[in-house]
């Protein structure tokens, strides 16, 4: 079954149209986000379809997809929890927050997704919120000054199917929704 069909294919065309004529290749990054918003990761089929839309080879699209860490090329948890452990956050206790996230989300060492499919936990580089360290992003929505205890609460909330209110910006319900926002598209059912 194709990844981009129907309304998704129309959105793909809208994305391509954002860029100047003859410069359609620039749409590759938002198109990869669009693919990611459908399957929750960038699948092989998705790469091929993006290549087809842009008149490129799958290899050319894959070269881009593998360069950037925000594209996930393998199945991913419903929620992606990113814990910054760069220097400014580590100085304020981020390593303990990361450990707490792994433990609470039950992501074992070497595992990319928790057994229940709910969580992927990443140790992240600087997220640009050093003023409110330690910084955590859940589906790219920010949570400030997160203690290990708060980290456990956030994971527990997600388990209870609640979307915790972020420090700024709208709440993002899942990694798929985040990918839609990153493609520059509205999330269905979300307030504008």
């Amino acid at each position: 079954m194709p990844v981009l069909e129907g309304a998704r294919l129309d959105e793909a065309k809208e994305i391509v149209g954002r860029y100047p004529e003859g410069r359609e290749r620039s749409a590759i990054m938002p198109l990869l986000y669009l693919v990611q918003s459908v399957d929750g990761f960038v699948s092989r089929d998705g790469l091929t379809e993006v290549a087809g839309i842009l008149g490129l080879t799958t290899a050319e699209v894959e070269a881009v997809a593998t360069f950037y860490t925000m594209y996930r090329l393998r199945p991913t948890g419903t929620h992606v929890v990113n814990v910054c452990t760069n220097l400014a956050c580590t100085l304020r206790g981020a390593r303990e927050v990361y450990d707490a996230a792994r433990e609470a989300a039950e992501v074992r060492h070497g595992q990319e997704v928790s057994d229940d499919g709910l969580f992927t936990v990443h140790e992240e580089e600087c997220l640009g919120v050093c003023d409110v360290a330690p910084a955590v992003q859940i589906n790219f929505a920010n949570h400030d000054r997160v203690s290990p205890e708060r980290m456990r609460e956030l994971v527990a909330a997600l388990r209870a199917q609640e979307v915790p209110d972020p420090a700024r910006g709208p709440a993002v319900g899942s990694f798929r929704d985040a990918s839609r926002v990153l493609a520059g598209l509205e999330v269905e059912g979300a307030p504008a």
Partner: protein
Amino acid sequence: MTVSFERRLTRDWDDPKVIGIDGYCAKGGYEALRNALNMEPSEIVETVKTAGLRGRGGAGFPTGTKWSFVPTDTGKPTYVVVNFDESEPGTCNNRELVDRDPHRLLEGTAIAALAIGCRTAFVYVRGEYLAQSLVLERAIREAYDGGYLGRGIAGTDVDLDVVLHRGAGAYICGEETALLSSLEGFRGQPRLRPPFPAVEGLYASPTVINNVETLMSVPDIILRGPEWFRQLGTEKSPGTKLFTISGKVERPGNYELPLGTPLRVLLEDVAGGVLGGRPLKAWTPGGSSTPLLTGDHIDTALDYESVAAAGSLLGTGAVMVLDDTDCVVDAAQRMTRFYAHESCGKCTPCREGTWWAERVLGRVADGYGVEDDLPVIEDLGRNIMFRAFCALADGAAAVLQSSLKHFRDEFEEHVRLGRCPFRAAHEEVAV
């Protein structure tokens, strides 16, 4: 010493209404753009040049001069690209500027576009700034509806489109030629210069790439003039700058100060001092890519010249503070890990050198280092510095060189003791 001056970039931060276009216009927003529409492009460039505005993204290159390099007679379109890929560790001032005052960025971008005859501008925002990308999306929509973007801006016959482009998690894309590669739909790897982007940038066309804070400084320069801009700051580093202070500090945050303000004022008077009143051990003046300085450098004035004279760089103005309980070897290892992760892999010294340095530093940090590891780290620093296409490598080398230069005894102590003197025994890493 306290600081008293008229805030510029942050003056409306207490007023959440300026986030919307009506609130922004009520405070005089888009007036500078109207003025600029009545100026010759060369006059705009000259005004910014005279003001002495220097690029706030790290390099400090004079903005007006950068604009003046753009040829307008090539028959190709010209482009303005806003570098909102803020990713330098410790830096978050662009984020807060956009969160609190997004229209000022659009106004500055539009003025830059007028200066070089650009009809399509791009904003490259790092992917992790999802919330800010939405703030900007809304501001762009409002500016189109308000007639400040789109066809015939502000009632003239000038057209300007702004396209928002989200990155996807790559520090290297803050480097301007890597950013262009990324925006064109390629892997974000830097390109050889020359040709410089001003001549052959986006889509091989003349392009100006400016940092967010740089562009947001432009409207006031147009409105109030270069002399006003020069009233604060130093002769060679005029104006104010947003400093991010983080790490072991009482009140971390983004603070606007005149360039040339000493670190002591930023740290002690503005940010409340080192956390818990502990001694200042080390700090970065402008993110992890700028050489570490020590507590002895506390009176260094934060401007391009003075920080360079102290042996570092002003960079993005991101001060990360380490106190006397923090391990410099650990910090250097963590910073180096960042460069190893973010190296785009194009140049061997950076790709292999950062990978190697991370491991040697890790060994020393965990107490398994040997005496010969120190010369290895020095050698890696020497062989990475200035030997790659872009400044990412120089930033990585700066960490290696400056940590050893100022804290050699701490590295030696790790080797001598066979453990980290700052870590409690139970935290020791098992072999």
